[in-house]
């Protein structure tokens, strides 16, 4: 026997259908609410919730009406709505981390970090120092990185290698594709305020 799909596209059984929602809530009787919940990290794959999430959605206020791409079976798989509701990121964006590879001259393998974790350049540089056990020194607009034989650089969207620290942090976060900690003469060259 076919299972009964309550949300069938376009079908509106308002008058006769039982609606799910907290007692005394009239709004649920007026519309069928679907919601998209995006996965945090993987390529956003929609997980549709049936309208029974209406109570939690309305409470959280973060649902969007969207057509069901695929008719969903009520209550299948058997996961409590409490658990289902816990996955959408509270932020609007679907992406979560900004992961970039970090290489250091002379090191045998690369590392990977999530730029979103850091408050700003100082935070990032301290983390890199800790990760690679080195000292990067202090940034100066005119002279680059003083007091160290290392210079942190990054490849931007245009494919150019830039010195870390020149542009505002937010701009850096959105344009940085990968990081490279340069060493030695190459680094000193960059540091000479060119």
């Amino acid at each position, binding site marked *: *026997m076919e299972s009964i799909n309550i949300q069938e596209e376009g079908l509106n059984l308002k008058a*006769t259908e039982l609606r799910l929602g*907290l007692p005394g809530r009239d709004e649920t009787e007026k519309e069928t609410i679907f919601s998209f919940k995006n996965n945090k*990290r993987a390529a956003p794959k929609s997980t549709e919730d049936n309208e029974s999430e209406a109570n939690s959605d309305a409470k959280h206020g973060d649902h969007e009406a969207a057509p069901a791409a695929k008719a969903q079976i009520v209550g299948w798989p058997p996961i409590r709505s409490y658990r289902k509701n*816990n996955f959408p990121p509270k932020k609007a964006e679907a992406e979560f981390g900004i992961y970039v590879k970090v290489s250091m001259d002379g090191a045998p393998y690369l590392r990977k970090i999530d730029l979103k974790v850091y408050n700003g350049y100082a935070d990032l540089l301290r983390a890199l120092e800790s990760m690679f056990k080195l000292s990067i020194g202090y940034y100066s607009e005119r002279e680059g990185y003083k007091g160290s034989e290392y210079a942190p650089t990054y490849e931007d969207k245009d494919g150019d290698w830039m010195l870390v620290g020149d542009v505002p942090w937010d701009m850096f976060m959105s344009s940085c594709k990968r990081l490279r900690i340069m060493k030695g003469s190459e680094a000193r060259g960059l540091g000479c305020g060119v």
Partner: protein
Amino acid sequence: MSDLTPTTLRNNVPLSPDEVLEIALESVLEFLPCQRDRNAFSLVNKSWNRIEAETRFEVVIGNCYSISPQRVVNRFKAIKSVVLKGKPRFADFSLLPPDWGARFSPWVVVLSGAYRGLEKLCLKRMYVSNDDLVVVANTFVGFKEIRLVCCEGFGTSGLAVLAGKCRQLRVLELIEDEVADDEEDWISFFPGGATCLESLMFDCVECPLNFNALEKLVARSPSLKKLRVNRYVSLGQLRHLMIIAPQLTHLGTGSYGPLEDLEDPLPANELRDHVSSAFAASKSLVCLSGFREIVPYFLPAVYPVCANLTSLNLSYANILVEEFKQVISHCHKLQILWVLDLISDGGLVAVAATCKDLQELRVFPMDTIEDNAGPVSDVGLHAIAEGCKKLQSILFFCQQMTNAAVISMSINCPDLIVFRLCIIGRYRPDHSTGEPMDEGFGAIVKNCKKLTRLAVSGLLTDRAFSYIGQYGKLLRTLSVAFAGDSDMGLTYVLEGCPKLEKLEIRDSPFGDIALRSGMHQYHNMRFLWMSTCKVTRQGCREIARQIPGVIVEIFNWNQVGEEGENSDLVDTLYMYRSLEGPRADAPRFVNIL
């Protein structure tokens, strides 16, 4: 009986032989805390029945409609602890309309009249209002423990009253409840001075928190051992709590990372170091959960406690396989693990390699859409079977499975008590042989001699059910969905499983003939649930007529069905044994036959 001389005295008055017997029996009863045993004891004769009733302190009511509150208080006079369960489990999956029932109000009225000394309350799947909580707080003077599991209907104002009035409160545990935001700063209501709190769990309360008040509360709760906070507590804040309460044994983190709206002054690597130190200082920590909104960078901070952990819940943590493997590699003592299927088969292999004492494993799906393949499969299950031989309980969601892996588990894990496999793709056969999953589940019931709970899925013919009926002699709970060919399937189970108590079935082709085959059983069972099967009104009516002591509820989703009055097929049948007649609070859409 005259040769039984009264050798005992009470208050210098010689006791009669009957009184001596009573005292002896009361002493015996002290060693019988288990309700099942006490029930048996109480059936011997009237006097044993009375003695048992007088010495019982905890009553467990598995279905709030099986007995009226009045009857409970008439039978038991000195109850200190009540466990009450309401809605059937399938309500969790939106298969029960709201307003169906299971309200706590009629119970609290009667309990508050009879048991002034009530100390403990545990409610599951019930509708509990703020007013109910007010009654609890005002009536039970020495109230000590409240646990609300999968309940709804109350909000933070109810919590505030509990916090403010229950001066002896030791345990306040809110587990997967729906809690309304009444905009009450409930944490601030706990009275000043040292509290008796031992356990405070509110991770499901989706309301902002007064952290200052929480911090002070934890600081003046020297007995606090279990703390689970909600996601409005950031990692930096959590660290403060951990420093104040290094004696914690159970910790549920809030948001495992910095919160955007909070100014976290520490740079990330420093925060991580501090959290790590806090974990290192928590020498008693054995149970870790939470990890909502996780920022994976901070996960390594838990490494210092991993070696002591016996229970770890990462089922809300969106992390990569490698990050998981790093954590689990330290967890040699783990007995309970809840994870997301994101950890993939590779993660399960890592679990199998490290967690040799594992007793309970739950693998939840991140993605609930039916798909051809998913991150976990028979490969992971096989690894767990071979690595975790002490396994007792498993809940495993996957997109595809093989009989071989399930059979392997049945052989390698003979201690299994609970086996719940959910193949998300409905009607899916063994993906390597194309065969139904009959043999796999058959092996489980046959080889796992201690099995009491089973959930089946995938492509299953009546043969699978014949195995269950043949071998599932200890089975108490069975869940079936999208399975079976004919009435014979259900018949095998009803005729073959004498210990069956809870049977929940959905979307399976079992009809009236099958229903009839269980008539001898239904008064032995707690309940039978059948939704979107092939039972008819007529069939249900027959059961209702022929079996006294069983309530038969039916309801249809479409009140005015397309087929009209002639539609004889029943959407949902919920049948349960009861000492009472039909309940008076049934909503309009429920038909009690």
